[in-house]
């Protein structure tokens, strides 16, 4: 039954009439489900098949409004069905539905061509948003803690913080889009049809430009903070486990405004005020 429930829908969002081995699906359904006076075995199984797809599509639709906007509804729905067939949920929560989307898009660019690079940027940003929403926030280190930090320590960054190098300025685009989005409905066991979709307006003028973002949570809000190249390099090094000394050494050759020592000190003060550092190890 599980295989039948999770099998992709066919034309018109109805259960496929042919089974995997070519037999009529009707035969498969009749082998284990009783009909009643109103519904055939096929029709009873179809209720579950359609509910499954409507539920996960709806969740995916809500999690990736930016990706949907740049691909358009039809292309997005084809992509969603292909992705969700290849990567069905492996988690008790639908929140993790998109956990392998970036990997899927990279491996199969035909689903997003000719906007693949833009699609990847948005998929990465929208996943980072999900992670920022409810990943753990550990007790943060203050500037006082950092002041005496030895050069050989490895600073730990918050689990809710994601660092992104992007090829397009998708943050402003997504913020504008999300202004119009409503709250997701609570988990309802039953989805009787594809939920009516709000038509998404694609904002023109998405700028193609290398940029660096930190996606994080601060006082229950999700923020996209633009970073200077040096900040991204430094933070990425720390996140990868480099010592403070080695991470700072990566700044050599990069242009840093003002007095580099003072500037980098200010960066750390600002990041610790945002609660980005949550521990260290020797």
């Amino acid at each position, binding site marked *: 039954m599980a295989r039948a429930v999770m099998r992709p829908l066919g034309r018109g969002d109805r259960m496929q009439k042919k089974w995997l081995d070519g037999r009529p699906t009707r035969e498969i359904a009749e082998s284990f489900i009783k009909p009643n006076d109103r519904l055939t075995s096929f029709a009873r199984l179809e*209720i579950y098949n359609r509910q499954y797809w409507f539920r996960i599509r709806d969740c995916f639709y809500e999690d990736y409004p930016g990706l949907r906007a740049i691909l358009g509804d039809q292309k997005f729905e084809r992509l969603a069905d292909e992705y969700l067939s290849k990567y069905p949920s492996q988690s008790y929560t639908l929140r993790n539905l998109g956990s392998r989307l970036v990997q899927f898009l990279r491996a199969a660019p035909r689903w997003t061509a000719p906007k693949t690079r833009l699609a990847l940027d948005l998929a990465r940003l929208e996943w980072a948003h999900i992670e920022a929403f409810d990943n753990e926030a550990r007790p943060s280190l203050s500037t006082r803690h950092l002041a005496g930090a030895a050069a050989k320590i490895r600073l730990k960054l918050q689990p809710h913080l994601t660092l992104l190098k992007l090829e397009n300025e998708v943050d402003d685009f997504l913020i504008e889009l999300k202004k119009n989005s409503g709250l997701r409905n609570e988990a309802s066991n039953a989805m009787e049809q594809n939920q009516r979709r709000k038509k998404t307006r694609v904002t023109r003028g998405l700028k193609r430009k290398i940029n660096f973002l930190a996606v994080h949570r601060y006082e229950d809000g999700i923020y996209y903070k633009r970073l200077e190249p040096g900040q991204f390099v430094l933070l990425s090094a720390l996140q990868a486990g480099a010592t403070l000394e080695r991470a700072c050494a990566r700044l050599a050759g990069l242009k840093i405004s003002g007095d580099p020592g003072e500037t980098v000190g200010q960066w750390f003060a600002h990041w610790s005020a945002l609660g980005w550092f949550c521990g260290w190890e020797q």
Partner: protein
Amino acid sequence: MPANPFNGFTDYGIGIGLRVPHYEHILSQRPAVDWFEIISENFMGDGGRPLKVLDQILEQYRVVQHGVSMYFGSPEKLNREHLKKIKRLVKRTRTPWLSDHLCWGSVDGRYTHDLLPMPYTFAAAKVTAQRIREARDFLEVPICVENVSSYAEFHVSEMTEWEFLNEVVERADCGILLDVNNIYVSSRNHHFNPFDYVNGIPASRVAQIHIAGHSKFQKYILDTHDHPVIDPVWKLYERAIQRTGRTATLLEWDDRIPSFNEVHDEALKANQFLKRVEKESAQT
């Protein structure tokens, strides 16, 4: 029963589900609500606003956990990591009991995110009861199992659904979360008398009752939790409390959610039935 081992010997009244659209109203207005039911899975992450809101709610209100992914009816082993997450939440909420469904929904690590119906066989009852006992032993909190609404029945079933429920709860020695809307929905879809169901379960094991709305289609009814409770369901509720006495009652409204007041007022309609039953009981 008002207070029994399956609801942790508590005497909770009428509650509603804790839902995102109502957060602001609840936290700012602090309405009088006897208790809230939370979907465990919505609060099993490691941080963020959901847990912050939950902690604020816990300062003022009683909360009971209701799960959708333990899949007691699955033949697979219980996932220990999943149980650990639930247990962390149990300690946080101090829920007096924990409920989940008499269903299955995952196979080989893939989740349908649905509450799939079970074949009503003795073999299935045995496996299900074993899982419930293991979960209870690990979580160290009373467990209640909820009857689901269903749209399919299986050829292999050896008994009615309520006979199956009885078999499971007796073997597991656990409580029942009696969902009278689910009984109504299933009775329409499978042509049985819903009062046979309500009359056929052990009243002493009922720890909680769910009421809810549903959607009617041409050939079946779907359990959508997006409408008020209809009269036939209220009648089932009344019969249930005639048998069980005053029991913790929860209105589920999960989709197209109206204002807090509208949902709470709908739940409080249960009072008229509780008063009527108590009056009848006093007279006999």
